[in-house]
């Protein structure tokens, strides 16, 4: 087992355990905090996959921003997120069966597909390549995304603003 494999399994364990805690904790604050190792683990996987830029963004946005945001909201709406209220609905067994089945089936499919060898090599300077791709072939997607961000920004302000 080389260093890469070791890293992978460690990160995978981090992700899975974190994810499990996220969906399983009764305390929502715990769940939100457990999100951090999961997202960090995913970031680590990106490093293993030579996706430095994505890693950076993952750290900045997910770990830095979204997690904090979620925590804030949990604290803001504490009366409704506390331990006294039941946190699970009545379809737990069914959900367990369905999601378990889905995972198993996906595995069955993924492992059977013969993925061929890579059709090229990764560009050496990763952020530059990403930038070129974003601004040349995918510029439309880029623009649309920025528009969506704008709309979200406005929408979020409108929705969350306290009405006079």
């Amino acid at each position, binding site marked *: 087992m080389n260093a890469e494999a070791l890293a992978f399994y460690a990160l995978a364990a981090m992700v899975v355990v974190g994810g499990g805690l996220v969906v399983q904790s009764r305390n929502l604050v715990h769940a939100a905090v457990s999100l951090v190792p999961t997202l960090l683990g995913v970031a680590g996987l990106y490093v293993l996959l030579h996706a430095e830029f994505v890693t950076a963004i993952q750290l900045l946005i997910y770990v830095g921003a979204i997690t904090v945001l979620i925590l804030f909201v949990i604290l803001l709406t504490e009366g409704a997120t506390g331990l006294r209220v039941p946190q699970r*609905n009545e*379809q737990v067994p*069914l*959900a367990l069966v*369905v*999601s378990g*089945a*889905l995972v198993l*089936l*996906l595995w*069955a*499919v993924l492992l*059977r*597909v013969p993925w061929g060898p890579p059709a090229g090599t990764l560009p050496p300077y990763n952020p530059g390549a990403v930038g070129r791709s974003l601004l040349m072939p995918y510029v439309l997607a880029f623009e649309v995304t920025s528009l969506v961000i704008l709309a979200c920004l406005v929408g979020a302000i409108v929705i969350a603003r306290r009405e006079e």
Partner: protein
Amino acid sequence: MARLAWLIPLFPLVSYGVLAFRGRSLGERAPYVAIGAMALSALVAWAVFLEQALGAEPFVWRAAWAVGGERVITVGYTVDPLSSITVAMITLVGGLIFVYSVGYMHGDPYYARFFAFLSLFCAGMLTMVLANSFLLMLIGWEVIGLCSYLLIGFYFRRRSANMAQMKAFLTTRVGDTLMLIGIMALFWQFGTVDYHAVFESVRKGAKEASAVVRLGPWEVPVVTLTALLVFGGPIGKSGQFPLHVWLPDAMEGPTPVSALIHAATLVAAGVYLVGRAYPLFFFTPHHEALVWVAWVGTLTAVMAALIAVAQDDIKRILAYSTISQLGFMMAGLGVLGYTAGLFHLLTHAFFKALLFLAAGSVIHAVHTNNIKEMGGLWRCMPVTFWTFLAGFLALAGVFPFAGFWSKDEILLEAYHHNPAVYVLLTAAAFLTALYMSRLVAYAFFGRYRGPEHPEPDPWLPEDYERAGLHPPGHGHHHRQPHESPPVMTVPLVVLAFFALVVGFVGVPGTGPDGGSWIHHFLKFEGFEEAGIHAPSFSWPLALRSLAVALAGIGVAWVVYGLRWVRSEQVRAWIGPLYPFLRHRMYIDTVYGWVFVRGGLALATGLRWFDVHVVDGLVNLVGWVTVLLSRLHRLFDTYVVDGLVNLVGWATRGLGSLLRPLQTGRAYNYILVAAAGVAVLVLVSLWRL
């Protein structure tokens, strides 16, 4: 000059416009606008009339007004002897009444409005007379109806005036609707409503076999039915039986209005129309439409004269007298006396306007309408008395006043063409002299009795306040009535003059070939074609009618003047006839019950029907739908009705079956979606 005839109605119309928009600021000067316009219009009218009298050709002008497919409906005016002499009469009488009104209406808070409505009336009346088609005639006809409505209710604070104006408009409207249907029938038969074209067609059509309509057991020729429907308008407007009920009530209006509208012009419009549309009546099989006209007229003449004898209100007596005289005119036209009827129309306009104005002068002085509260007025109101007397003699038909000549013409025609009508009309003439003498005797002779309850002011103090006037004080009128100011008496004198002389156009020898001028001027061409000749004047007949008139005066003088026989005794002799006549033969009462209350009851009933039945059905449908949806849980227990639309039930049933699945909770839906994805993955696994 005939080309300028369109100016005749235009002047009063402009005057109306000015007074309607600027009347308030004109204030006291408002009448000058109206009188000036009438003077200009009279000038043109008399010029046109004299031109026609000197033998000018009739003139017609048309312009397109509406279109329907390829057809064009025109309006325009026609100048011929009949229309020109009528407009000359209207502008003259109208102008004099305008002048009189300056005095009569002085100090009224709605002074300008009064003259505005009078001007509009004259515009409408002149339009109606000059019109060259049934369409324009109808327009003028309804406009004068509107003005009559507005002027009857001029004292709009009075409930009685409000009721009277509605009664007038609605009663005439019944006749107008019949006439409208008649005009529709004309359009149907001839495709036009132009006088000339219609009359040409009926003249030609008279020689051919005419189409008939079945009305129950009777077969009526279409032309006759059309003519009679058109006659519905004159029946309403000219107060003929059975639509005469509005005219006596119309006396609620100010007296100049009664003089102008309800004596001289508007009510004569019906007679004028029958004269104008004479071919329509004449060219029916056996002139049968004219026979109807004659009998309606005769009946009206007798009935109204009878009622007039038992009335006490001076204006009502004159109103019933007007109805009766209009009946005379209709009867005259009906017994083939085309000239006679129209001649009486012209003379009657002068002397009846005179009588009303003089009556107005009396009312102005004594503040009551009841002749039994007057008396002895000949001494304190000499001008009014003498002019009234002139009008009285003209109406009674005493030689040489105008009424003698024209009424005699009618009796002469009736004598030759329809003896039964002649007898009845003679009786009516006797009654006319009787009730008029009664009126004169009560009002002008004896001693002054004075009103117990003087007529209250028609206006409220607030009306004067708004107009910036001071309400007239109470008790300022003298114990002894006094003569009216010259602005009112001068028109009386002028009209009295005409009441004396206007009949002379009917004196034999004034026209060519020894006939009278009026016969020469106003003649109906159809008579010559049909070989009918007007009977010539005969002295025995004239003397007989004069004797009848004098007899009427004599009888009245015996009872009411000299009081040899007390009127109470007369009442006792005639028994129930007196209350019958006094209550206007109960005609108004019956109409009130049948039409007014009946109509309102029907309306109320239909409103109930609308809310509870028609709308109830709609609401029932809605209610049932709501109920069904409320009961959806019990739906399964319902026994499915075989008649009910199976598809509808099935859809509904399927809906309720699927209903529990729609929980509205997102996580249920997502679970299903995830399971679906799992199934899809499973399928793809198979295919690998």
